[in-house]
């Protein structure tokens, strides 16, 4: 391996970034830079510098100047993670006339200065990392990015407010959108809400016009009652398999007149739209303003499907639109980009035994209350107890149910404070009841939110700072009989209180959708331990994912309110529109290639490839990699017993020499001896 006597063939520049004090605070950057210049000269290092911020324009110019003046053929930057600034330094090199793939960025921040405290050990590790980068960069090859065309259509999964916003942005810009929604109608959770904070405008009034626009848009193919089954391909060219559920209603003939659900004899508790507080029929649309207007027959509850007789809907349908023979339909669509906006599920409050939900009749969840308060809801907007008639005289609203709690979900659900304040207002306005809000902290950090909090205080809502310990019907003191007693420490007083109320509303938190992990797998993206999808960068790229061409918007990324969901929907759409307008996309040229002369035709690699990118030529008895299908994982490279497959960007030479470098086997031995 020793190349002591050989003259190095490349001229390499090494640049050590201080990143302010982020790196320089732990790693002695000047020492690393000097060490690299002294000890790696045998590898071809001709310049080694350290600089305050390599990613700044001055830092980049420094590299460019050296490339030109020192005739550098390779560049190694030791700074942050390549996932952050690899494109920056590649572009800088390209600007100075060097092939961008001849630049190597090694991480001495995320993998060194930020994770270690021992300054000497961290400096030594930085030297090894730089040595690894230098010995690797020698074997880099000039590459040309792969260009692939981008299909102009976009798939949007989830028809809540985030998905609706994204759909309209893209469709209005003139590009086709497939909007897939699992439920019979789009609208999502927002369609269930009564009022929206902090302005208290009616949720349906601001949502339904957008739903109608989606339903009528010439560029939108609306696929409700449908689910994505499979996603193949890659950015620009995804092939998506969608299962369209059988509605048992011919949408071409149906006018949405509503006679079918009027005549249907089968009443079902509606645990979705009405949150279990109301009923629907076996043939139904979730709510009157549903888009599309066509109903579905719920075959699990339909008398005909279960018992073989009834068909009342069919008999009464004026347009003969009912079709009991419909089957689920499988369709495939081609799209260039995907947005996931599948939203959230409500935390199941039954999991908190001390709050008694499911055991104590007058403990309600937030979604139940939304329906209770909604004038289109099961009580016509009357806020009443579970008996359906009694108006409560006192109501307790409990914050943080299932949130900020290591027993359940550790995160803050973000919307509950404002939602609870909204509930306090609605209860106060509609019933005049005494309202208590039980909170740990009030979090109102958005435009006009804290003002709303002030308003609720002014309206006379009583605030008790303390996480509710238990809700019970076991009366202990006079005045508690027949009431729900909220037992809590009023932490500002430092005393335990027992507050009897008629009704309790639990502000249950937001959870990732059940099955979010499976959906993540289908789309090839990652999921946090909680189940929320991981964005490309938590601050600077919140709507993209690690997978090119797949974006996320709304609560699928983490709990958020309506304005934030809308902003993300629009942001994801803007990102995609930018891509579509470029018409093609440059992909990392990391691909495997079979060297025909070395291939023995054993076909071991053929079955290794999950993308079926390797074909076997029966005539010549060799395998070949189709670069359009290859994703560059390199498994075949590792598997080939003959070493006949090479992988660009991650060749055996590159990695083996990086190992040498990391183990400091490449050092200038004479220098080392001199030091010793």
């Amino acid at each position, binding site marked *: 391996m020793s190349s002591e006597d050989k003259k190095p063939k490349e001229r390499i520049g090494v640049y050590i970034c201080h990143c302010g004090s982020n790196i320089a605070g732990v790693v002695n950057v000047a020492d690393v830079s000097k060490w690299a210049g002294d000890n790696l000269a045998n590898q071809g290092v001709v310049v080694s510098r350290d600089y305050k911020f390599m990613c700044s324009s001055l830092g980049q110019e420094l590299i460019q100047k050296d490339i030109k003046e020192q005739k550098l053929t390779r560049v190694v930057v030791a700074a942050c993670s390549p996932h952050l600034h690899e494109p920056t330094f590649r572009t800088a090199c390209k600007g100075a006339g060097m092939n961008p793939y001849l630049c190597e960025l090694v991480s001495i921040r995320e993998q060194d200065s930020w994770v270690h405290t021992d300054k000497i050990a961290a400096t030594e590790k930085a030297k090894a990392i730089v040595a690894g980068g230098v010995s690797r960069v020698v074997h880099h090859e000039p590459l040309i990015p792969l260009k692939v065309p981008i299909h102009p259509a976009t798939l949007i999964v989830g028809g809540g407010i985030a998905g609706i916003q994204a759909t309209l942005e893209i469709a209005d810009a003139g590009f086709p959108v497939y909007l897939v929604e699992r439920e019979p109608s789009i609208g999502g959770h927002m369609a269930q809400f009564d009022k929206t904070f902090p302005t208290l405008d009616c949720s349906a009034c601001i949502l339904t016009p957008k739903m109608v626009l989606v339903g009528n848009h010439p560029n939108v193919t609306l696929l409700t009652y449908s689910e994505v089954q499979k996603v193949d391909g890659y950015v620009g060219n995804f092939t998506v398999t969608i299962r369209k559920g059988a509605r048992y209603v011919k949408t071409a003939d149906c006018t949405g007149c509503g006679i079918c659900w009027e005549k249907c004899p089968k009443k079902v508790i509606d645990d979705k739209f009405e949150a279990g507080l109301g009923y629907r029929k076996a043939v139904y649309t979730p709510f009157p303003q549903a888009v599309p207007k066509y109903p579905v027959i719920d075959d699990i509850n339909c008398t005909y499907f279960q018992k073989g007789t009834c068909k009342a809907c069919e008999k009464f349908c004026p347009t003969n639109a009912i079709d009991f023979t419909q089957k689920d339909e499988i369709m495939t669509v081609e799209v260039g980009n995907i947005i996931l906006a599948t939203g959230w599920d409500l935390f199941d409050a039954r999991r908190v035994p001390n709050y008694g939900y499911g*055991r104590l009749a007058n403990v309600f969840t937030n979604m139940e209350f939304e329906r209770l308060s909604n004038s289109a809801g099961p009580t016509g907007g009357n806020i009443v107890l579970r008996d359906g008639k009694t108006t409560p005289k006192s109501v307790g609203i409990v914050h943080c149910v299932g949130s900020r709690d290591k027993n359940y979900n550790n995160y803050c659900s973000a919307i509950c404070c404002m939602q609870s304040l909204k509930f306090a207002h609605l209860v106060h306005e509609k019933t005049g009841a005494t309202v208590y809000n039980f909170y740990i902290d009030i979090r109102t950090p958005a435009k006009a939110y804290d003002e709303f909090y002030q308003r609720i205080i002014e309206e006379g809502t009583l605030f008790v700072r303390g996480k509710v310990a238990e809700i019970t019907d076991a009366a202990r003191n006079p005045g508690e009989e027949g009431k729900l007693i909220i037992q809590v420490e009023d932490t500002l007083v430092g005393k335990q209180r027992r507050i009897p109320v008629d009704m309790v509303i639990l502000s249950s938190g937001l959870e990732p959708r059940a099955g979010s992990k499976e959906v993540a797998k289908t789309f090839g993206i990652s999921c946090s331990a909680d189940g929320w999808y991981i964005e490309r960068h938590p601050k600077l790229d919140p709507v993209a994912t690690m997978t090119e061409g797949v974006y996320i918007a709304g609560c699928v990324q983490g709990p958020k309110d309506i304005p934030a969901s809308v902003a993300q929907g629009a942001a994801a759409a803007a990102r995609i529109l930018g891509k579509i307008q470029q018409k093609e996309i440059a992909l990392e040229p990391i691909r495997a290639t079979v060297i025909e002369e070395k291939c023995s035709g054993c076909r071991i690699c053929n079955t290794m490839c999950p993308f079926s990118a390797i074909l076997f030529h029966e005539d010549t008895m060799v395998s070949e990699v189709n670069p359009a299908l290859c994703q560059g994982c390199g498994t075949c490279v590792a598997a080939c017993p003959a070493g006949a497959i090479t992988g660009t960007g991650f060749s055996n030479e590159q990695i083996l020499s990086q190992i040498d470098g990391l183990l400091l086997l490449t050092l200038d031995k004479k220098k080392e001896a001199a030091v010793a």
Partner: protein
Amino acid sequence: MSEYLFYPGCSMESSAKAYYHSVMSVCKSLDVKLNEIDDWNCCGATEYLSLDITPAYALIARNLALAEQQANGLNTIVAPCSACYLNLSKADHYMHEDKAFGKKINTALAAGGLHYDPGQMVVRHLLDVVINEVGMDKVKERIVKPLTGLRVAPYIGCMLPRPDYNKRYSDSEHPYELDDLLRALGAEVIDFPLKTACCGGHMTQIGPDTAFELIRRLISSADDYKADVLVALCPMCQMNLDAFQGQMNGYFHTNYHIPILFFTQLMGLAFGEKPENLGFGSEFVSAHEAMQRIGVQTPLPDAAKPAPKKPAGLPMPPARARAGQKITIGNEEASK
């Protein structure tokens, strides 16, 4: 036949003999063999932990070490007392989780020639074993006299479902295991809201005002629900609610009368055992009337006794003790 190591705990030999006899009777019916750990010692209840942590855990761990020594292929210790159960599982849990702590306790044990490998023994309460190992099917098979018509308040108390290091119970606040068992016996089970509330613990000895209030909450709630009896599964809970019910009534000027029975006493009845052999009659608040309602004759409470000559707490003349020993003799005969 299933076999377990058995840690009875001190109360089973003194204040909770009714529990002891009924446990033995029920286990016999269910083909459960209990091998009492030889030379076990007191678990220290909640008292030693209050004084000195290390000796407290060493005291508990001595039992675990003995159990491991005598295991003979078994790995489960059954404790019928909730406090003993919790202490044993707590010691095992922390010795396992906190390795340095485990080492420290073993250093102490070594002074007595003992050693315990954390995680080796599994500690379970009798209720858990009955429900999850013996199984409800077998319990149902044994029932010859269902408790039809008896309204019971299932009372679990604190230390069984909490902190529940090994997540053995359905819930830490409203577990349903005891309800299911009692329902299987044919009793009418109320949805007792305070089923895991505190009985007062040692407060009866150090802060009676607090203890009486805690006892009142439980008794009055059971009374609100018109329970005939309250069913306990811990000697301490039974003692507090039964023996102090009278004093509590005096303190609050109330007149509650809720008999407190062990779950094994009711199981024994349903299995057809004679009430005398299950420790009936040893309760302060007599269950006679409640049991008569479902056609079971339990021994009548003893006739009023002459006033004692000495205040409580000091040793009593042996003659008094003999009167109570009848039960023991009766049981011995029955087991022959």
